[in-house]
Every structure is written in structure tokens, then in C-alpha cells.
């Protein structure tokens, strides 16, 4: 589904050039749960922005569902974001003082497909999938706890039924217990509903919830392998 070759992103400040991303190549198949892991400043956020059609690489190629993302206009990229990609941010980014339902409906306003009558049902399905308690649905976004807010954000990412869900440090602002619950939600979405999930994190224990871990350092991919521990624990469960 995703095919990246020789992705490079250079930031210029004065005369110095910084390689935020240096010759990164990889593929991600439909239904995978991948963690991109690296310390801060490693280029993982840049990579996420490029994968999420929020930014363009300086050079290299990026195909999403066979579409060459480098040659699309800003409006085309906006449409890809509206239809094919769902974002979950570290700082939730909900609209303040706005009801949960309206926050989840927001992406449907921009996708030009969903009929207004269907929106509320779609939002409710997404909220169920994200595991938010029904009695919170009509609360205002600022009346929720961190974990609840992140579930609303996940529901908002799901509501368009995107091919790809990008989560940027989704547990970064949560305590470890709530973080586990949110990660379990991603796991569930991947296992039971087949969503492709890319999880960006700087912490190994978070990355280990994924099936595959791509490690990035100074803009270069240093390792890309299956998450052995998870396989082991899965085998343990089976036997």
C-alpha cells in the first residue's frame, strides 16, 4: 500500500543543510501495524508528515495506493487527507468547547462524500470502535479526561474509514495506564477491523505493541524488522 524509495528531506537554515530524512526506503502492506521509532530529532516526525501528505520530500518517491504523491497539487493532497488518511496527534487537537459528536463529524464535512444525514451514525460507529463510553458523546471536548480526548481523536481519525491511520506519539500526553488502554484500542482496530496503523513513538515499550518496528536515527533507517517479542507472546498464547 505504501511504497517509499530514497525519501530525502533537507531543511536549509542559512548555508547549512540538515538532513531530516536521508535516503529512506520501505514498503508497508495493507493491514500492517507498524511502529516508527527513534529519539527526538531523528526524523520520525518528518517521515510521518510526508506519509500523511502534510509535507513533501525534497527527493525520492512515495506511492500511496499506487498514486505518485509527489506530483499532486495541494488540493489533491487535501483530498487524500480527507479520504485516505486519519491522524491521531499527541496533543489531541480537538476543537475546544465543541461537543464530542461534532468533533468526530468534522472530517466528514471536508470529504464531500458523506450525506449530512449519515454523519451522526458514522460518528457513533467510530466512537464505538474507539471505545468511548456512550454517556460522554454529548459532552463538550474540554469536559473530558486525557484518555477520553484521545479516544475522541481516534474516533475522528476512523470516521472517514481511511486506509491508513497515522498516530504521532498518541500516548505522549497520557499516563502509562491510560496509554495502555489507547494502545490496546489501536491493537483492536488492527486485529479486528484490519486498519493499517503507523505508530510514531520514541519509546520502545510503546513501539513493542506493533507487529513491525522501523527504527530511525539521524534521518536514516537503521533497522526494520518484525517485532519478535510480540510473535513470541502470540505463539505462547496459541500453545
Amino acid at each position, binding site marked *: 500500500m505504501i511504497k517509499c524509495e530514497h525519501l530525502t528531506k533537507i531543511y536549509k537554515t542559512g548555508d547549512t543543510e540538515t538532513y531530516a530524512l536521508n535516503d529512506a526506503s520501505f514498503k508497508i502492506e495493507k493491514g500492517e501495524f507498524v511502529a516508527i521509532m527513534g529519539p527526538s530529532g531523528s526524523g520520525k516526525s518528518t517521515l510521518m508528515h510526508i506519509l500523511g501528505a502534510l*509535507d513533501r520530500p525534497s527527493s525520492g518517491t512515495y506511492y500511496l495506493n499506487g498514486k505518485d504523491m509527489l506530483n499532486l497539487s495541494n488540493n489533491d493532497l487535501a483530498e487524500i487527507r480527507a479520504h485516505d488518511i486519519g491522524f491521531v*496527534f499527541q496533543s489531541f*487537537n480537538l476543537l475546544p468547547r*465543541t461537543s464530542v459528536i*461534532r468533533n468526530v463529524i*468534522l472530517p466528514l464535512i*471536508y*470529504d464531500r462524500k458523506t450525506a449530512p444525514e449519515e454523519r451522526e451514525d458514522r460518528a457513533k460507529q467510530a466512537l464505538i470502535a474507539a471505545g468511548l463510553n456512550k454517556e460522554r458523546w454529548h459532552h463538550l471536548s474540554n469536559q473530558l479526561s486525557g484518555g477520553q480526548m484521545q479516544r475522541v481523536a481516534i474516533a475522528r481519525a476512523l470516521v*472517514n474509514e481511511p486506509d491508513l491511520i497515522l498516530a504521532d506519539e498518541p500516548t505522549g500526553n497520557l499516563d502509562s495506564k491510560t496509554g495502555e488502554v489507547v494502545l490496546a484500542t489501536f491493537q483492536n482496530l488492527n486485529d479486528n477491523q484490519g486498519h493499517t496503523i503507523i505508530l510514531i513513538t520514541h519509546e520502545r515499550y510503546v513501539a513493542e505493541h506493533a507487529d513491525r518496528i522501523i527504527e530511525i536515527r539521524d534521518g536514516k533507517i537503521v533497522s526494520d524488522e518484525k517485532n519478535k517479542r510480540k510473535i513470541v507472546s502470540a505463539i505462547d498464547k496459541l500453545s
Partner: protein
Amino acid sequence: MRTSDLLQETYSALISNKSRSGLTILGIVIGIASVIAMISIGQGATSNIQSNIQALGSNLLIVMPGSSKGVGSQVRGGMGSATSLTIDDSEAIEQEIDSIKTIAPVVSSRKQVTSKNGTNTNTSIYGVMPNYFSVKNITAELGELLTDLNINNLSKVAVIGPTTRDDLFGENSDPIGQKIRINSQEFTVIGVTVTKGGSGMNNSDDLIYIPLTTAQRYITGSESVSMINIEVTQEKLMDQVQQEISDLLLKRHNISDAASADFSIMNQADILGTMSSVSGTLTLLLGAIAGISLVVGGIGIMNMMLTTVTERTREIGLRKSLGAKNKDISTQFLTEATVLTSLGGIVGIIIGCLTAFLITKLGSLATQVSLFSILLAAGVSGLIGIVFGYYPARRAAKLNPIEALRYE
């Protein structure tokens, strides 16, 4: 983005930031309302002055000494300062020119006046003939007006205006028979005139009328008069009579060239013109005040709109990451700015008109709300609101979504 979604988004954005929206609207309301109220006061004052002048009577000619037309190579005395007009001129006009209904010469002077109980005021002293009161439509509230006998006897009697009475003897007191001193001469008050509502250049309530002959003898000490009021029988004869008076006086004063006349004749149109230029200045002044409030209001609107957009840069970034196109963002902010300015505009127009109405109700000034002031106020504030709501939003919409999302 559908239109219904646009309206829904605008509604919920404005509702979820009630105080910010409220303050923005308030800024617009104050800007628009003050402009409308100011201009209505200016225009009310203008028409008030004009109607006062017309109430003086339209058949009035006023002859004054000195030249009013100061343009020319020769240096001339200011209007009214010369002593070229005499009581004989007045009598000659009365005898030799037809179509004159009444003729009322006046000697005027400004003097300090003291009453017996020590209070004093500085006011205009008018030496008049008894017919002056009929020309000017003045009647007595208390006591009586001047008579021919007072003229012939050079009586030291005075008829005072109600404001002068209030100043000298206390409000609404009865001063008949009291003594006042003008120019160290003692006068007896014999009457108080009915209030005419003082406005314009001369407050006809703050005056003292004494017999013309007395004024010439004891106050000015000369034979000259300050002004001759002439009431013409018919309005259509005004120009003709004015010409005849001019010819007569030129002959009497031995002046061959009309351009160097030592007197001037004003008719109602001239006075109206002078007054209009005065009230024009007044309107200009109020307009300037209104203009300043418009600018202040505009800057308020501008600040609100700029902060709103800056505050919401992250939201713009979020909306873009959820698939909003640049056009969606700028249209939404334009709609919000339009809704805010229209709401503020409507309320502002209502409050402005209401203020003007209240001024009319409570004060003496009849204000006039004009369509022009409404259009001006609403147009300028609306334009500022929309431009400064739209422009920063358009800039924010063009931002890279990542930068917008990171904006703190």
C-alpha cells in the same frame, strides 16, 4: 464543503467563543452607533439654525454701517464698526421709499450691567423704537414694552430678556420696578420679554432693550445707529426695495461708487448663507469626531479579527490535516467575519438611531438620522471587519499545515 456545513461551522465557532464574538460585535456596534448619532446631531443642529432664521421673518432687510465686502485694494473698517448710519438715514428711508411696512433702527452695545443687590452680567444693550418689538415678534411676559412716550422723554427704563432677568434677579423672579445700572446710569425695569429659546448667534433671551434716544444720549453718546431693521410689505419686492435703499443712502452719504459704500444691506438669504456656513463648520466638527470614532472602532475590529485568527492557527492546521482545502478555510473565516460585522452593524444602526431619538426626546435638539450616515458607518466598519477577518485567515490557510499545527 457544503453551504449548510459552512453555516453550521460558523455558528458553532461563534457560539463556542461567546465572549470573543461578543466583544468583536461590541466594537463594531460602538463604532457604527457613535457615527450615526454624531452625524444626526450635526444635521439636526444645522436645520435647527436654519429654521430659527426663517422664523425671524422672510421679508426682513437689515442695513448696517461699514462695509461687509472687504475685498479690494482699500482698507475698510469692519462691518458695523463705522458710525456712518444715523437716525436721519432711518427717517429718510421711511419717508422716501414705498413698500416698507415697518422700520426699526437699533443702537446696540455690550455693557456690564449691575443690579441693586450686587449681581452683575455682561450683556447686549439694544436701543430700540417701540416698533422693533413688532418686527421681531417680541411680546412681554411681565410688565410692558417700550412706548413712544419713553422715546420722546428719553426715559431711563429697560425691558429685559428672561435670561438676563434670571442672571440679575434670580430665576423666575418679578423684577418690575427694580433698578439696574448700565454705564453708571440707573434704569428702571418695566418689562420682561417672553422666552424665544436662545440659539444661533444672538440669544434673544439675554438682552436689555432701552429707548433708542436714551441709548444714543447715555450709552453710545453719538447720533449713529448700529442697525436698521426694515420689514418689506411683500417678499417679491425685496430686491427692488434693497436697491432703492442702497441708492438713497449712497445719495445721502455723497458716494458715487456703489462699491465703496459705507453701509451694507443684508437680506434673509445673506443671513441664511452666513448661518449655513457656521452650521457647516459644526457638521464638519461632529463629522470629524464621528470619523475618529469610526477609526477607533475600526482598529478595535481589526485587533479582534487579527487575534481571533492568530489564536486559531492550530485549529486551521487541524482542519487542513483533516482534509480542508485552503478555500474551505478562507471561506469559513470570511463567513465568520461577515456574520460578526453584519450582526454588529445591525445592532449598531439600531442603537445609533435610538440614541438620536433619545437626544430628540430628552434634549432641545431635533436630531436627523440620514441614510448617508448609516451607509457610511456600516460600510466602513463592515469593510474593515471583513478585510481584517479575511486577510489573516487567508494567510493562515496558505500556511503549511505542520507549521500551523505546531503554532503556539
